[in-house]
């Protein structure tokens, strides 16, 4: 009962992800998650085309209309907000911004972190020590605190700075993974062979070592992506992220907070969207992890 016989670990692990959400067979659940993410991507790309109304159009005569109601202009699937703006249209534009920030942010973190990891592994010595000390420092601080410190100084409202900063979240994990795996790869036959054949440092690292550690990096990206969405929406919710007239899922939620008594949908619609998206991303991430990285011990 306590110890199962030496379990076929790999297939066991593959089935585990299915059980996170219970009874649906694993394939179905991952497919639903994929479908949701696909829907989000389509909405993000075509938000301006799909949105039934201008997301900024104010109509004070139709404030706080509940979902599935109609007014003189037409039908409001998710109702209207405190200024009579169509919640669905605002949601679509918000999805666009939030996904864009998360995507660009994840890429920035991956590229910066991986490069730093390569540099540390190549240089060794003092540079390596300094990088690792910085990695330690970053790992010991919640990233949100650092972001808040920067915004306290730089002021809020600069969207480019915000995306760059949100992107830096998680760089230390890419750096650590890249450095560690590169150090062990350098001693492997293939990297040494390329070097003996006259391949330069850049060629060895980018053409030969990078493809070999890519799986681990992609796995890290699937972990990082939902975290970036959560960081962006949390910061926007707190009023130090995306600023009006731009809008993100976090902004929508923070407006909705003030109208919980009479208009629950203003907060619920963006809130559930964030929840479903991070949940779907976690499920897809587990799946990707199992597919790409059988050697890494997953957390279950």
């Amino acid at each position: 009962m306590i110890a199962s016989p030496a379990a076929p670990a790999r297939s066991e692990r593959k089935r585990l992800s299915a059980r996170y959400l219970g009874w649906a067979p694993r394939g179905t659940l991952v497919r639903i998650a994929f479908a949701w993410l696909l829907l989000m991507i389509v909405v993000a790309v075509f938000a301006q085309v799909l949105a039934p109304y201008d997301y900024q159009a104010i109509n004070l005569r139709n404030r706080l209309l509940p979902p599935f109601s109609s007014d003189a202009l037409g039908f409001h699937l998710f109702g209207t907000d405190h200024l009579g703006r169509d919640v669905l249209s605002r949601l679509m534009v918000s999805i666009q911004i939030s996904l864009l920030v998360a995507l660009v942010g994840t890429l920035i973190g991956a590229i910066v972190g991986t490069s730093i990891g390569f540099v540390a592994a190549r240089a060794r010595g003092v540079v390596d020590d300094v990088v690792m000390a910085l990695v330690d420092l970053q790992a010991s601080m919640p990233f949100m605190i650092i972001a808040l410190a920067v915004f306290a100084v730089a002021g809020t409202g600069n969207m480019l700075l915000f995306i760059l900063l949100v992107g830096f979240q998680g760089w230390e994990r890419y750096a650590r993974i890249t450095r560690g795996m590169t150090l062990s790869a350098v001693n492997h036959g293939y990297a040494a062979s390329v070097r003996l054949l006259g391949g330069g440092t850049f060629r060895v690292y980018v053409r030969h070592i990078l493809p070999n550690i890519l799986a681990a990096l992609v796995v890290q990206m699937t972990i990082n992506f939902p975290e970036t969405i959560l960081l962006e929406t949390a910061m926007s919710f707190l009023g130090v992220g995306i600023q009006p007239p731009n809008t993100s899922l976090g902004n929508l939620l923070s407006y909705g907070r003030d109208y919980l008594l009479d208009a629950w949908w203003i907060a619920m619609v963006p809130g559930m969207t964030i929840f479903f998206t991070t949940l779907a991303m976690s499920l897809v991430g587990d799946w990707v992890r199992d597919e790409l990285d059988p050697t890494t011990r997953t957390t279950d």
Partner: protein
Amino acid sequence: MNLRFVTRKLLRALITLVLAVTFVFVILRAAGDPVLAMLPDDTSPEIVEQMRQAWGLDLPIWQQYLRYWQGALQGDLGTSIYEGRPAVDLVLERIPQTLLLTVPSFFFMLIVGVPAGIWAALRRNSGVDRVIMSISVSGYSLPNFFLGILLILVFSVQLRLLPSAGSGSAAHLVMPVLTLGTAGAGVIARFVRSSMLEVMNKHYVRAAIARGVPRHIVLTRIALPNAAIPVITIVGFMIGTLIAGSIVTETVFAWPGAGRLLLDAVSSRDLAVVQVGVMLIATSMIVTNFTVDMVYFLVDPRLRYGSGQGEGS
């Protein structure tokens, strides 16, 4: 041998602390002249110059850095421009409220997460396991700010059971603690489960079962202590989540703690308060990490006896 482990970790903690304090200095100076950032745009140049001299901003940068350290070590980290009082005092008087929120949340995470994880591991592949893991994944996918709003909708708006804002009574504490602790409980449950499952498959556990050691002894004396070791790391990590989460939670529930003070200071660019807040958080995180290392050291004989490796399976 074992002393080397302790000194190495201590040294590392100190270096990280120095780096963190330096980081705050660099951030605050990199952004340009703090005097200009704080004073209104139409302040006359004489007053600006006066302020700069008063704060030592006309000195070379390395002297400023030394003075900054001097101040930090004496607990003098500037004055809040809005309150006109020492920033350290402002932050410190809010700390008890934040602890009132984070300490119960921490225990909530452990009291819910650890037994749930053990239970799921023991009933692996059963309905119980599935339900626990479903709740766990949902729990940490649910952003805490949204969970807080959901709780307000259900318990304050619909059921009218709990106050939606403020502090002062036990009832005020319920929803903030749930908001702050749920994600962590989910992460811990999942981690404990995987750690238990792994330990249960080790040779020494199976050998104990084969020898006929009673099941509850195997569990409490052999499996649990070994499964607990990796869990310590994740518990240390959770402290950071709690600190970041308290900013959000205090905002959602209008809780008068240090997290909200920090956020307000960021919005109003009250740099002295931000500086104290960030340093305090950095210090507590570094102390936490060091403590986690030491607990590791105490519970893991492999570290104590210096081999540093050696696997049971």
